[in-house]
């Protein structure tokens, strides 16, 4: 009898734990014909594995989540490019009323690379707070603040803090149309003072998206994003007689301005099978990045890119075969036209993978 009680108690406790403890994993294989997105095409197969865990402390009005994410990108041929990524975080969701909720969070991320790429290792501390208010079932306003501290361990020159505030409005209409409007203002402050007064950059982003249902489980979406640098600054680094700009090492979002527009088509064939196709055009103006030829001579004052992208993704929910299992197949094509010959490139990326959660 005692054994039965213990087994019953274990069963009950495991059921409770199952409700509070979440684990998910992913496995993807990418076939990328231009892994560095440059005129010098280098192709490789990349294997991405991820294991994420979260524990929820829930009450009627509050959910506190402790989570951990781990992922690895393994490059089959260019092993030195492989990297590890970890994130630890706390996220709190407080329901203030039926209409409003407050989200607060903090997380710490680490990216470690291999071989010469350890120069690109970084850590990040990120905190955020946002408030979501529902005027009605279909109209929601969200506003918030994000602070990121980006520390480049081997390039302290580039370490910076980013402050970002945003406001976003979502609305859906009886015509089966949805509207999303958002704006955000970001400021980047370099940590290391170099006696240069221009150590701060400000950027404004405006975003509008319209979605329209065109048939049962079929949707079209159109978006436009405008990115404008209110003030700009970038830093560079000389190594081995070569000048490296921050954007070329760390993909600095503050390095360019311009616009992006795209259209997407989404079709759900059933509750378990979906298709999405997307066409995107992006114009980027890198006003502080001079164009160099392969001998290092400046041939234009600033780099300008025009990029076309096309992608198709198919998702299949396989939970009928195995709990919370889903499969994804993706094909992306990029064509980047730049006045800098180094950045004139095409890129095709095939990926296939499985997601699993329990």
């Amino acid at each position, binding site marked *: 009898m005692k054994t039965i009680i213990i087994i019953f108690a274990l069963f009950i406790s495991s059921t409770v734990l199952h409700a509070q403890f979440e684990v998910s994993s992913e496995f*993807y294989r990418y076939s990328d014909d231009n892994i*560095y997105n*440059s005129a010098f095409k*280098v192709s490789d197969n990349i294997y991405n594995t*991820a294991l994420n865990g979260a524990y929820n402390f829930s009450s009627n009005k509050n959910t506190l989540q402790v989570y951990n994410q781990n*992922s690895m990108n393994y490059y089959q041929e260019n092993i*030195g*490019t492989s990297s590890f*990524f970890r994130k630890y975080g706390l996220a709190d969701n407080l329901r203030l009323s039926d209409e409003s909720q407050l989200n607060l969070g903090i997380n710490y*991320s680490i*990216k470690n*690379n291999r*071989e010469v790429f350890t120069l*690109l290792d*970084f850590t*990040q501390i990120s905190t955020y707070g946002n408030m979501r208010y529902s005027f009605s*079932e*279909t109209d*929601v306003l969200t506003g918030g603040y994000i602070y990121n501290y980006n520390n*480049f361990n081997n390039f302290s020159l580039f370490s910076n803090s980013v402050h970002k505030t945003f406001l976003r409005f*979502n609305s*859906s*209409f009886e015509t*089966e149309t*949805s509207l999303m409007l958002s704006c955000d203002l970001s400021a980047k402050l370099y940590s290391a003072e170099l006696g240069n007064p221009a150590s701060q950059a400000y950027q404004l982003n405006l975003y509008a*998206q*319209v*979605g*329209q*249902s*065109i048939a049962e*489980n079929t*949707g*079209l*979406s159109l*978006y436009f994003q405008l990115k404008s640098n209110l003030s700009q600054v970038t830093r560079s680094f000389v*190594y*081995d007689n*070569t000048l*490296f700009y921050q*954007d*070329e*090492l*760390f*993909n*600095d979002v503050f390095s360019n301005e311009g616009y992006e527009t795209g259209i*997407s088509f*989404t079709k*759900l064939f059933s*509750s378990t099978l*979906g298709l*999405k196709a997307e066409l995107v055009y992006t114009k980027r103006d890198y006003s502080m990045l001079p164009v160099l030829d392969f001998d290092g001579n400046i041939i234009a004052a600033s780099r300008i890119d025009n990029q076309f992208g096309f992608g198709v*993704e198919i*998702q299949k*929910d396989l*939970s009928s075969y195995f709990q919370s299992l889903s499969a*994804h197949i*993706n094909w992306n094509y990029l064509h980047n036209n730049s006045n800098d010959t180094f950045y004139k490139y095409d890129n095709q990326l095939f*990926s296939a993978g499985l*997601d699993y959660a329990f």
Partner: protein
Amino acid sequence: MKIIFILTIMLFLAQSVKAQDSTTVSVKKEKISAQNENNRDPLIDKKMKDDVFIDKDGDGICDFRTKGMSFEKLKRRNRQGPGDGKGKGKGNH
């Protein structure tokens, strides 16, 4: 004769019971209908709520019908930090 009489009585009783049932059902329906005018059936309310078009991610598909399907996962995975090391940097090509 006795048997026919008994069968007739039974048939009459059966019809009477059926008529009574119909009346009862009819009354019940009216009662439910009256109740619903004041306080709708929660199941009906839920169905109506599900039919409200809400599209949080702006893809043109009602979110109630896309539960479990998310095309944003891949995008999220590709946004892992401030830099990916692509560029002219030494060793990158």
